[in-house]
């Protein structure tokens, strides 16, 4: 049967009646180049899926997604920093360090240091020098912290060899030697900060999920509007033998292009905002306060720089999958 069709097809071109009379009997060897538009748009989607609305909405989504990604990256960076700080397990603040101790000779600081060093389960106890103290206070008081005329306490960094050391009993003994001395156990704070960092990350993740969901809805609505506008053209093309895959592919290609473009614009627009935030956060993440643009680039975590370009890719995937699903489901109404 196919052979017969082929033979028939071969003949009909030559034998078609009237060709000679019309003067166009010889098929042109070279068809004019302008015959085929550069991008053949048989369903008229360039107007039905406009290049304004969908990209703008997706750009807004991508902008929000970039902020959420920055939130994730920021929370994990802070979490890491706090974890590193956890090495010193205990901090003891001795107010009026040069004052006389409660009993015996020496200053309050000397007494406390001697007491700590003599306690089993403590590996080391070391008073921070002026420079370290200033670094500690810089986020709160600025670079001039050391010159400020405030009575600063001495801060003793204590490392434990016995993690099960009873901090309560130690606090009582330190208080007796130098009244008013504060003993701060870090691990309780560390646990809270870790929970806080994890919660921040979870919130950012949730925000990303919501943004993705809204993006899916936006693409679905745009595609449905396009289907309604081009219903006539779709029915014609369907009647000419187009498969569901062909028609869905046309929509998906257009939706992918528009979503990726929008997300690219949104991601680029988010960069200055993120750099500004990084500038504000710099003193808290162990960086100098007055950072130049070049340092700001390094101020954003590498993971964030890597995930920003993934926004257009994710938007493209959302556009493609959503358009395919929406169009294929819609086409089920045609026979």
């Amino acid at each position, binding site marked *: 049967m196919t052979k*017969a*069709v082929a033979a*028939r*097809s071969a*003949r*009909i*071109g030559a*034998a*078609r*009646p*009237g*060709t000679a009379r*019309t003067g*166009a009997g010889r*098929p*042109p060897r070279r*068809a004019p180049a*302008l*015959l*085929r*538009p550069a991008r*053949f*748009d*048989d369903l*008229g989607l360039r*107007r039905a899926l406009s290049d304004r609305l969908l990209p703008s909405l997706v750009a807004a989504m991508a902008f929000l997604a970039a902020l959420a990604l920055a939130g994730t990256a920021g929370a994990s960076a802070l979490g890491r920093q706090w974890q590193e700080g956890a090495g010193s397990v205990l901090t003891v603040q001795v107010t009026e360090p040069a004052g006389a101790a409660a009993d015996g000779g020496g200053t309050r600081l000397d007494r406390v240091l001697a007491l700590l060093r003599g306690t089993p389960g403590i590996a080391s106890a070391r008073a921070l020098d002026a420079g370290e103290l200033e670094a500690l206070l810089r986020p709160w008081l600025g670079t001039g912290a050391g010159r400020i005329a405030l009575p600063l306490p001495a801060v003793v960094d204590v490392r434990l060899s016995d993690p099960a050391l009873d901090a309560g009993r130690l606090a009582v003994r330190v208080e007796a030697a130098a009244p008013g001395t504060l003993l701060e156990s870090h691990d309780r704070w560390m646990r809270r900060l870790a929970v806080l960092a994890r919660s921040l990350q979870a919130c950012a993740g949730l925000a990303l999920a919501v943004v993705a969901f809204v993006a899916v809805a936006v693409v679905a609505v745009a595609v449905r509007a396009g289907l309604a506008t081009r219903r*006539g*053209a779709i029915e*014609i*093309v*369907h*009647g*000419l*033998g*187009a*498969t*569901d895959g*062909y028609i869905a592919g046309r929509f998906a290609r257009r939706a992918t292009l528009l979503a990726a473009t929008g997300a690219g614009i949104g991601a680029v627009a988010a960069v200055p905002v993120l750099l500004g935030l990084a500038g504000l956060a710099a003193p808290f993440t162990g960086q100098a306060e007055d950072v130049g643009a070049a340092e700001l680039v390094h101020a954003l975590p590498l993971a964030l720089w890597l995930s920003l370009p993934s926004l257009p890719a994710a938007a493209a995937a959302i556009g493609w999958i959503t358009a395919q699903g929406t169009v294929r489901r819609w086409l089920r109404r045609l*026979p």
Partner: protein
Amino acid sequence: MVRLDGVGLEFGQAGTTNRVLQAVSFSVAEGGFRWLLGPSGAGKTSLLRLLHLAVRPTEGRLTLLDQDIGAAARSRLPVLRRRIGMVFQDFRLLPHLSAFDNVALPLRLAGRPEGQVRVDAVELLSWVGLSRKLQSRPAELSGGEQQRVAIARAVVARPLLLLADEPTGNLDDLQAERLMQLLHEMNRLGTTVVVATHNAALVSRHPAHTLRLLDGRLVRDD
């Protein structure tokens, strides 16, 4: 090629059913030619839509191109549709495409190489006298010109079954005769042809096997 056994077609809308075709049985052998006659509203367009696989029968059995259409999977139908050419009463050209792109569409859907697409589409449009209107949109063409673009599109992919719904409605006598030549030639080369028409003069000039519909029933088959 085409076989209907007790085919019925109903459209159900909000509780009421509209029986458009009832107990229609006939067959057309490969290479056959049929006039499809009947007053307006008799069901001619509906019958052609059935044969074009735009609707499936709600009753009876329709066999087309060796396939039982009632039982065929939906995914089988596009391939069958590409072997069927249809000239619609209302043309159904894509308004945003040029005459050339409208005629090229069936070839592109069938995955023909672009070089062959150009040659075939240009040749067909020249044959229907539109070689100077390749780039015109349907809105820039007269009714008769649009009808000729629709005819070119229906035959360009060399269908096995060619259906035409009042294809001379907007053509003058000369153009109608040229269309008949085209249909006869396609038919002579093996294409099965079914033409619905009101044009009694045309039918008497080209006598052939006739199907006559009345109120959705086949009342004559000879």
